[in-house]
């Protein structure tokens, strides 16, 4: 049975995939390593929280090693930093695809990557134009310090532990264009219009055929009646003879 074969192949493939996946770094383990200070400003207004518009506004993100960790050697293994845009809890409610999970491999909080930079203890700044595929939501910025293979070692974020302060609301594009609206209207009108046209054409043809048939039947009936009356007359004459 080919259905069984397909099922078995699928099952083997899935089991293989599952065995390859590994657990990522636990976020809780990084709690003691909040060694970076991060600040994000909306360029136009120079404030750290408020509304930013997709496509036009820029975020200026600056990060550095927290001065209290200077010289402690905590940053010895930091190679790069990953800067990410993360959802605030208010934008995560009722949306399982943005869920925060402790396993960073499965965590969906910071799904939008902004950029990656080389780590220097004095820090760096980046200006990022908010791309048009960013959905409308409330965000904060988080920076992970990673080693050469990309494993997270430390982090810093623009907001506090409860993720309620310094949040940036990003206003998205709708994706609609006037040309799409017009095209949709034109196609819809064409669909309904050609349907009505077809149906009326068929109705007209029917009416013509019905009237032709009507004439035809009427003529045929009068023929029959005439024919029958002639027959009857001949029978009467025959019977009389």
């Amino acid at each position, binding site marked *: 049975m080919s259905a069984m074969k*397909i099922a*078995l192949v699928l*099952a083997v493939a899935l089991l293989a995939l599952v065995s390859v996946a590994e657990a990522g770094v636990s976020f809780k383990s990084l709690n003691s390593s909040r060694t970076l200070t991060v600040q994000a400003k909306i360029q136009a207004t120079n404030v750290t929280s408020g509304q930013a518009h997709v496509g036009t506004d820029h975020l200026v993100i600056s990060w550095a090693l927290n001065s209290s960790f200077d010289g402690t050697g905590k940053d010895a293994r930091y190679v790069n930093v990953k800067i990410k845009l993360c959802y605030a809890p208010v934008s995560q409610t009722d949306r399982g695809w943005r869920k925060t999970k402790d396993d960073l491999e499965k965590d969906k909080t910071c799904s939008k990557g902004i950029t990656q930079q080389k780590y220097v203890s004095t820090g760096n700044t980046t200006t990022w134009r908010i791309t048009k*595929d960013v959905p409308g939501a409330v965000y904060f910025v988080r920076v992970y310090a990673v080693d050469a293979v990309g494993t997270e070692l430390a982090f810093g974020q623009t907001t506090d532990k409860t993720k309620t302060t310094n949040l940036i609301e990003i206003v998205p594009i*709708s994706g609609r264009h006037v040309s799409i609206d017009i095209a949709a209207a034109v196609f*819809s009108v064409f*669909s309904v219009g050609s349907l009505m046209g077809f149906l009326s054409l068929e109705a007209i043809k029917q009416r013509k055929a019905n009237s032709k048939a009507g004439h035809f039947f009427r003529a045929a009936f009068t023929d029959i009646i005439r024919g029958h009356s002639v027959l009857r007359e001949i029978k009467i004459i025959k019977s009389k003879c």
Partner: protein
Amino acid sequence: MAPQGENQTDADLTGEPGSSLHGVTGHEVFPFINMETVAEEPTDLKGRKFSLPVDSEHKAKKLKIYSFARPHMLTFHLSWISFMTCFFSTFAAPPLLPIIRENLNLTKKDIANAGIASVSGSIISRLLMGTICDLFGPRYGCAILLMATAPAVFCMSIVSSVDGFILVRFFISFALATFVSCQFWMSSMFNGQIVGLANGLAAGWGNAGGGITQLVMPLVYDLIAKGIGAESFTAWRLAFFLPGCMHIVMGLIVLAIGQDLPDGNYSSLKRSGDKVNDTFFKVLQYGVTNYRTWIFTITYGYCLGVELTVDNIIAQYFYDRFDINLKIAGTIGSTVGLMNIISRPAGGIISDMAARRFGMRGRLWSLWILQTIGGVLCIGLGLLGNLGPSVVVLVIFSTFMEAACGATFGIIPFISRRSLGVISGAVGAGGNAGSILTQVLFFQSSKYSTEKGIMLMGVMAIACTAVLFLVYFPQWGGMLCPPSKATEEDYYGGEWNEAERAKNLHRNSIKFAENSRTERGPSRQSQNSDSSPPTKV
């Protein structure tokens, strides 16, 4: 009209006045007098020979899949492609949901409501489509539905709010009523012995549209987003022009080259008197008062209903319970839809094979067995906790459930001849109602976990399938009871009252009754060996 042999009487031979006019006009003028003789080669209204062997109603007795010959095979292909187009557009949104939910800021509840909306619109439209098919013909029904729902598909490109999204999915789902016109059309074109296969193939290949869309829409989106370089929030909107245009193209093709019956369209057949002009209330009355309609509405609610529910919840179930990639979960979901290509026709074939050996009783038993096994496997799916076995059980379970759907429509054409459309519509709507009921009972609130919900769905499926034991055809029997002395003519003729029978309005039902004698099973075929249609003057 079939070419009419002439009943030559003595009067004609002696040259009575008027006799020489026979055949002069070339067009027979007595539509209300049914002078039928068995012609040597059955021909359609235009006198052309049918390319497939046909019965006395000119329904085909064979199915040639690679042929596009008019009228039977062409109708088959038009029918399944139209239905596939509608399934494609109804389920075009789910694979693009990761993008749509970000664009419209949807929550999980919004998505669930949109999912329920996407199977509720078709309840109303399937009921209406049944009566439209009975009164105006499946060609009009199918084409009008395709072209009237195209604007709804185009509206998906311009939604910008949650309510708009839910409304549009609701209106697009009206298109799923093409299922009724598809099954009705197949039952009008194909003889009872292969109607299970024809219905199963057409519906199965149509249902597969739900699986095809899960693979095609993401591809189209990628093409637009990367090929043209459109923004993601614009690309998904443009992608919806594909299903919209498919609607328009198929609608025009069906209108241009489709045909209601092997002998022509309803309008021309009504004019020539071969199709009886029926009334809405009569058709509705005989559909609604037949208790078998409601039994099959319930059982179909728990075979198609289960399939639709699984389509909606299974990707999320695998994603959440087994923590696999969303794309892989989506691919698993699409296989459930794609299995329809084989499993639904298989159900139809099993029904037809059972009928050949045991008659209608075989059809009823095969449906009960297929659906009950499906229910048992559903319970198993809910109880399993491992990924691999779950996938295997899912595939086998969906095969059995979809085969049960195919087997159901091997029986539906025999419940009524007069109200076939109304019954097909009611049963089809029942499928959707079953899905909504199941989703609301077991999957909407957090009372049950998803796996417990799946298990309870299986239990309910087994319970609802048991009502099949109540079905009884006087001329063929039921699952437990043998047939009585009644004949097929009594059963189908009984749908017309005395006055209608006096006017011979029931002649098509009588023809159907003769052809349906095969449902007696081989042991009783030799009884009542009237093989030629009676001549009525």
